[in-house]
């Protein structure tokens, strides 16, 4: 049997360099969860419809399920835990809790990463701009209003 080709990669996750081996068609989402233990990155649809696997790749919000792991070689990656942790939450995370923007919580990881990308480039977003920025992230619980409220309030706090 032909040996499967593997490729060594190194990537900076939340400021720390990590090394692993991947096969060509493996997705970034797969290695984050299965090889690097980053289970804060969620898997929903696995084909770019739901956005729950959103991460920052060189500062831009992307679907980890639509990115090849090997394409993150020598790139910088930020996941939810790189934005804030339980001990040191980011204002976005505090605001989500405060405004009831988390119900089942499955979309939250991706929502906060997408919101972070927005606030990094636009500290004064309108509600419409917030809705557009999270339009690749599906939430089936909240009806989005509370999520938009939470991002709006976090933006105010961060200014």
């Amino acid at each position, binding site marked *: 049997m032909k040996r499967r080709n593997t490729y060594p990669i190194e990537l900076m996750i939340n400021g720390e360099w990590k090394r692993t081996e991947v096969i060509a068609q493996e997705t970034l989402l797969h290695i984050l969860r299965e090889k690097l233990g980053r289970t804060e990155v969620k898997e929903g649809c696995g084909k770019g419809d739901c956005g729950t696997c959103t991460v920052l790749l060189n500062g831009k919000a992307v*679907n980890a399920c639509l*990115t*090849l792991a090997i394409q993150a070689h020598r790139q910088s990656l930020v996941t939810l835990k790189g934005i804030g942790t339980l001990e040191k939450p980011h204002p976005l995370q505090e605001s989500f809790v405060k405004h009831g923007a988390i119900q089942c919580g499955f979309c939250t990881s991706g929502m906060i990463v*997408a919101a972070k990308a927005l606030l990094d480039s636009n500290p004064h977003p309108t509600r419409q701009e917030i809705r557009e920025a999270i*339009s690749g992230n599906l939430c089936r619980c909240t009806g989005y209003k509370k999520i938009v409220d939470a991002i709006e309030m976090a933006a105010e706090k961060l200014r």
Partner: protein
Amino acid sequence: MEYFAPATLSEALSLLKKWTGKARIVAGCTNTIPDMRSKAVKAEALIDVSHLRNLSFIKEEKKRIRIGALTTISGLTFSRTINKYVPILSEAARQFGNPLVRNRATIGGNLADASPAADTAVPLLVLEATVVTDREREKNRQIPIDRLFVGPNKTILKSDEMIKEVTFSKPDLGEKCAYAKLGLRNAMAISLVSVAVLLQIEGGECKKARIGLGAVAPKPIRAYRTEDMLIGEKITESLMRDCCQSVEREISPISDVRASAEYRRSMVSLLLRRLIQQIVSEGNR
């Protein structure tokens, strides 16, 4: 499966030659990964051209605009040049997928994928864009965009050929454009119907007319016969009615999970009428 990340265009072209018929060119991967999951792609190698940074550009020349194949859809939405000269292309880019996908998907990938609903193709058709490609032994082939597409996910590109850039003339001052996309929702919606119109109206008479249509035929198309009905005429209510009937005959929509053929037919003529009216009323202001 093998993976290559060529650092130069010539390296990419020689890899394509070597693996001809067995490799898939990838960049943003937003189509390739779902295609691999559904086993629609059976490539033995992936040739990742995303490192060819010099194919990511938007250049304004005296009379033309040139867009590198690796320009992302986000790059189109944020470009001042595109916004200023071809707002229909910005508009199509803003309605493309969602912000996460737009950060990865490229204009070259959208064209090479050749979906009948390819969002960037519809405005590029009315701009009469030229697609510039390279192969190892044939450089700078210029393909008029209406000849690029052959059928669903099929182009005239050879398997060792790669899109390098897309160019088009800046519209003249008198040329007015409009674009509309109808999807089932706003974000991440595959077009049910998309329409782009370019008209040049002088002294009440239509001098130039171009109509691009997406998702209503096996490939993105121009409605040439309907365009001919407009040229040299005054745009009246009865002419618009004739054009709407004509455009419905020029298309061959299918029924699928998103919409029926009948619905697509009536939406094409509705959107065409609205866009023509929009351009005419802007001209009167």
